[in-house]
């Protein structure tokens, strides 16, 4: 469903070019749960931003459902984002003034979902994510894990085909992280949602089915989980990371 082909991204002036992404290509199948790993500055977030149309590529193409999104004009990108993409960020990015329920509902209202069905739709997603009891609360009244689950609900409530997660467990404690990752695994398995997650944390990555390793803007390695138990997959990831170098201290 997602095809990334030879994309490049440069920063800086003519004399001093930094290559953030260097000829990266990969495919994502429908219903995959993919993690992108790499040390700080390896280009993970830039890659995610290019896919999510928040940033533009310098060269190459990104296809989603066979549509070249690098060629969609700016005014249509907003529509594309709200219909196809769901976002989960490290710092939640919820609107403080809205309740949890409304934070989920805002995606629907932006998509001009029939107003009378909004409540019902939100309730069903919230139930699946286990946040149906806090719907009337404001973000500052709930825990980080609950906030992130709310962000997940927002990212999938309209049936977006691709969920993009940028360090979703970055601000959570280990228990909440585990909870959230299991939930994301569920969403992936049960709803068939495609998830692309950027992380530098081996534990988080071990929940994915496939891992892409980035180093200095280039694709360095690729790892499949297949039918391996998660623990074993986790150790494999650590092995790759140790070869990769960089900062893996916090992964252990």
């Amino acid at each position, binding site marked *: 469903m997602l095809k990334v082909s030879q994309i490049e991204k440069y920063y800086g002036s003519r004399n001093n070019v930094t290559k953030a992404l260097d000829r990266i290509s990969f495919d994502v199948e429908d219903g995959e749960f993919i993690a992108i790993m790499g040390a700080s500055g390896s280009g993970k977030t830039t890659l995610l931003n290019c896919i999510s149309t928040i940033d533009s590529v310098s060269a190459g193409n990104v296809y989603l459902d066979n549509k070249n999104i690098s060629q969609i004009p700016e005014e249509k990108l907003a529509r594309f984002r709200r219909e196809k993409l769901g976002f989960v960020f490290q710092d939640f990015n919820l*609107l403080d003034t809205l309740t949890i329920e*409304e934070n989920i509902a805002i995606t629907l209202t932006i998509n001009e979902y029939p107003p009378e069905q909004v409540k019902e739709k939100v309730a069903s997603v919230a139930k699946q994510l286990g946040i149906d009891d806090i719907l009337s609360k404001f973000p500052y009244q709930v825990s980080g894990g609950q906030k992130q689950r709310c962000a997940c609900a927002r990212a999938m409530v309209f049936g977006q085909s691709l969920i993009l997660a940028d360090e979703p467990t970055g601000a959570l404690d280990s228990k909440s992280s585990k909870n959230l990752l299991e939930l994301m695994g569920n969403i992936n398995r049960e709803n068939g949602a495609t998830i692309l997650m950027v992380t530098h944390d081996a534990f988080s990555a071990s929940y994915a089915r496939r891992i892409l390793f980035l180093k200095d803007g280039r694709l360095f390695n690729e790892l499949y989980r297949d039918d391996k138990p998660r623990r074993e997959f986790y150790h494999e990831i650590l092995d790759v990371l140790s070869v990769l170098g960089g900062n893996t201290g916090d992964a252990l």
Partner: protein
Amino acid sequence: MLSKLSLRNATRQMKDYLIYFITIVIAATLIFSFNSLVFSQEIRSLSKLLDTLTLMIGIASFVVVCIIGWLVFYTMRFMMKRRSREFGTYLLLGIERKRIVNLFFLENLIIGAVALLIGLLTGNLLYQGLRAMLLRLYEIQYHFSYEFSLPATLLTFAYFALIFIVALFLNRRKIRKSKISELIYMDQYNEKELATDGKKRRRLFVASVISGIVGIGLLITYDATFSLIGAFAIIFFLFTFYISFSSGISAYFKKHERKKYSGNTLYVFRSLASKVGSMGITLSVISILLTATLIAVGTGLSFNHLFMRNAELETSHSIYIGSEEKADFSEYKIYIDENLNVTSQWQYNIYKQDSDSVTRYVDPYRDNFRAYDYDTVMAFSDYTRLRDMLGYHKVTLPEGEYIIQCLDYLAKPLAQYNEAVRIGDRTLLKRAVYYETFTQQHWNGNGSGFILVVPDEIAEALPVSHSAYAAMTDEPVTMTEYEALDMIRMHRHETDRDAGYDMIYSKEVVKEQNASLYAVIIFPLFYVALVLLIVSATVLAIQILSEMKGYQNQYAVLHMLGAERKYLSSALRRQFAVYYILPIIPAAVISSIFIFFLCLAFDPGVFQDIAQIFMIVGATLAIFFAVFAIYIAASYVSLRRNILPDDA
């Protein structure tokens, strides 16, 4: 180190609060220039009547200082709230509270001092403008002359010192009392509704609307006590209206889920609801200030009209003396011959007709004001003589006809009066109506409102109503000369109580009186109105712009979620409209009604028809919106530029 930090913060804040800063500069400009007028010897020497100017500008300055003080206090609160996290961090780093308070003090003093300095410079320019206006009112040639007014400068400085020190002192408590955690998380909490209970809120709303209607009713009773009660009722209305209104939004959307989830309503409503507490109060205060502004502007404009009309209606003679029963003007004449350079003069009688049919006819147009129980009559030769003196065109009076000379606003109804006049055994037909200014507004004038001009022999056969002396001079009559004549008048009354009452009118003196009234009443009114207006516009702008940082993040999230530009800019406009339009509506309604009834209360003839009153109301709103629109546009543009940065 700390002073370097505060200097940097002050310049940064000046950028953030540019509108606030400009308003403070304007305030300094106004305070300085108006006080310069008070202290200027040149202005004071224009007229003795300007002595009250000191008092009026003093009162106005008191109001202005209070309002600007509130603005400064309010803005500081806002700055503190917005920077609470910064202060919290300082505390966390171990900087003493006292030093943080000092830092904050210093920053604000720098802002105030810079504004004051600029204000003094621009104030000198505005002073020249005001001076030119005043000189024109007194019909004196304007020529540029600069005088540095030390007392005005010191007074402005003192006012500013007072404003800033009080505001700082009141705000100091807040930093002193807050806990670090409160400071760090202050900006995350949503505000609580002030009236949560639905029943209570509805009752409050009903009480509010009732008191609003009753208040307006009382305000226009033309009774000081009732009006004052009415004013308080209106203030109560405005306060409770916005509080119950803003608290009611949440309840409304709880009931109407469908409405909440359509379009951008959800976002707009929530961002307003999160500010219900302060929004309700801000909107009420702003609404009260705007009402006061509009009333001040409207009162100023209607008085301006009144003064202009007074000058028009009252007299066009340099000197006119009307005397009851006593046709002896010798005492006046001695003074006039000695002191005034008279170019022409005439003494004559006004006669009594033994019917009051014309008086009765014009009664309804003069609000039943009657100076005489009979129609007054003038001889044609006296009439032509007076017209000559005043430079009016020549008129003729054929045998068997009469002329009506009247106030301009009676010309229309009298043109339709076609009755014949019977005097003794003669019957006269109406020839024409003339309505040049002819000293007919008050007692002992050339009739009251109108006079019938008839052939000499017919008039002279009638009994005398009163006598008059009219003169034209080549130099304008001064206030001093007028007062000297007035002294003679008083003396005449004291020595001879049977002599009846004399009246003295003078075109130039009326002009000077009106110019002085203009300066004493309208200048301070506009001074206060302008300050009220810019302060309310600024508070609104600050309230909105200070949320900018929050809006910026929210709009970024919405944009990322795929909200289109149209969605975002429409949300922005709606948020904006709530703040700017809501407080204007009741202010415009209340003040329009007030101004309308104020104008109705003036003497008949001040406004020739109802359309002129609507013109005053319209002009008031136009002036108001012209100034307000500048602030709306400035804050909207700055908000848009900050929130939707890639605006094409």
